[in-house]
């Protein structure tokens, strides 16, 4: 695992760029633990100060240091993205592998549920969800809802791989070696789909961060928790754009763009590692 990582880092430009960028983003996020201010403290500093040595990213109209708010915001946004991706991967792996391997009635039932989720219009559901929950809205609820909405496409992808694996001779070899269905799915088929899952994870994180930003900018989330979208929401509320307080939205937008590009580069470079054949020729060499 470490060797693969080292090889990818040394010989794959996309991966090394993406990796350096994501480390930078994670670095910013981890700075939040050293913040002199609490995440929701407001009106502690003089408002609307442009970037300077004292306030490297300036201060907001709400009297916060933009830099320190940003560290909290990116941390929360990343946690949200990773949790959504993790939960939805678990669902799509389970549904995809079971459905593809067992086939028949199980497959039909699971896939009809899957297809329902594929065609559900995502955004209206989330907005509706906000209006139903209103003040009870919290991030854990939103994470679970997003995970429930984000697994369906990838479950189909995993199912198609699992279906082709089922007809391979080594699956029958495993059956006649006395392996249980659980063993076949987790030990024989899972290694084949994992690289695909890694790659879709990156895309899924990107997707959920995008949704978070969109919802927060419109104020359809718990806006008291600092997130990237939440920062832009408050900047809008204070008409920062027209007031010339550009640093209030420039830095969060720049950071989230870096995050997007980093995750995208990682997803692309994973593609090289996805193909079992390229992994095989890699093993040949080692």
């Amino acid at each position: 695992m470490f060797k693969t990582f080292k090889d990818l880092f040394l010989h794959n430009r996309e991966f090394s760029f993406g990796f350096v960028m994501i480390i930078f983003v994670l670095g910013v996020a981890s700075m939040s633990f050293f913040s002199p201010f609490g995440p929701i403290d407001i009106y502690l500093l003089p408002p609307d100060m442009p970037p300077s040595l004292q306030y490297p990213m300036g201060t907001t109209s709400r009297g916060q240091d933009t830099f320190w708010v940003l560290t909290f915001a990116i941390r929360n946004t990343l946690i949200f993205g990773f949790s959504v991706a993790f939960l939805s991967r678990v669902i799509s792996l389970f549904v995809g592998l079971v459905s593809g391997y067992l086939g028949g009635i199980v497959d039909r039932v699971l896939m009809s549920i899957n297809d329902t989720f594929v065609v559900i219009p995502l955004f209206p559901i989330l907005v509706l969800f906000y209006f139903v929950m209103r003040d009870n809205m919290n991030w854990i609820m939103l994470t679970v809802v997003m995970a429930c909405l984000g697994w369906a496409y990838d479950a189909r992808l995993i199912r198609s791989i699992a279906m082709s694996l089922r007809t391979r001779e080594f699956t029958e070899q495993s059956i006649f070696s006395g392996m249980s269905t659980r063993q076949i799915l987790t030990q024989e088929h899972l290694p084949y789909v994992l690289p695909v899952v890694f790659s879709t994870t990156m895309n899924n994180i990107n997707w959920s961060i995008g949704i978070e930003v969109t919802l927060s900018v419109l104020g359809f989330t718990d806006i008291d928790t600092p997130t990237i979208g939440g920062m832009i929401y408050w900047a809008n509320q204070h008409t920062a754009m027209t007031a010339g307080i550009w640093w209030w939205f420039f830095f969060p937008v720049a950071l989230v763009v870096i995050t997007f590009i980093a995750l995208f580069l990682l997803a692309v470079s994973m593609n090289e590692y996805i193909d079992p054949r390229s992994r095989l020729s890699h093993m040949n060499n080692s």
Partner: protein
Amino acid sequence: MKLGLVENLIKVEHVSRYFSLGGILTTNRFKAVDNVSFTIPVGSPQIFTIIGESGSGKTTLARMMLNLVKPSSGTIYFKGRDLTTIHSRKDKIRFMGDVQPVFQNPFSAFNPLKKVDRYLYISAYRFTTASTKSESEKCADIALNKVGLSLPEVKDRFPHELSGGQLQRIAIARALIASPSLLIADEPVSMVDASLRIAIVNLFKTLRDDLGVSIIYITHDLTTAYYISDQIIIMQKGVVVERGEARNILENPQHPYSQTLKQSVLSPTSTLND
């Protein structure tokens, strides 16, 4: 013992398998296997060969005998038990302990991302009394010795590090761990290199003579069939057209299809123009 009452190792009785073609409304049925019957007796291990070209239904028949596909009509009995009554996991394991497959393509018969010895250990845990790592390794070594290999040659190896002939022998060793009384080998040498093919075929003879394992050898190759078979059936489009003692039939086929097959076999002494 209950075994004493059973006369037949495997008894295939009027077995047919249909596949429906076309859409939901059309009822176009295609007979892959059509009313096939044969038996292999218990106590006299033999190599029973099923000869057929592509589309003859030989693979479907093999999959039915392995209980991977259910017959549309007719019954297959293994040691007196109807295969369709095998449902529970315990029964399945017991069945697999007695009937094992050998696959066509040794390169796809092992997961390329996993070490090959793993399959040997799992079989040992499942089908023998082995419960520790060293016991399962011992089981694997004994089985590998039977096919002319040893554990150190195989241990910690990935499939791509081994040749087709080695992999096919490991696959046979894996099947042997369960000490089956029947091996079902579907085209086991068609993907194996010429210089290694005869080794596999010789191995089948040894298994029959020394270990008393019966083998159902499914092939389109009449020459290796002649070399190792005891009994033979020739299938054409799902139907058995000729059956009997292998050497008699292949030396002197009676059915027109069998004769055509024999005439089409190329050998160093044949010519294209007859």
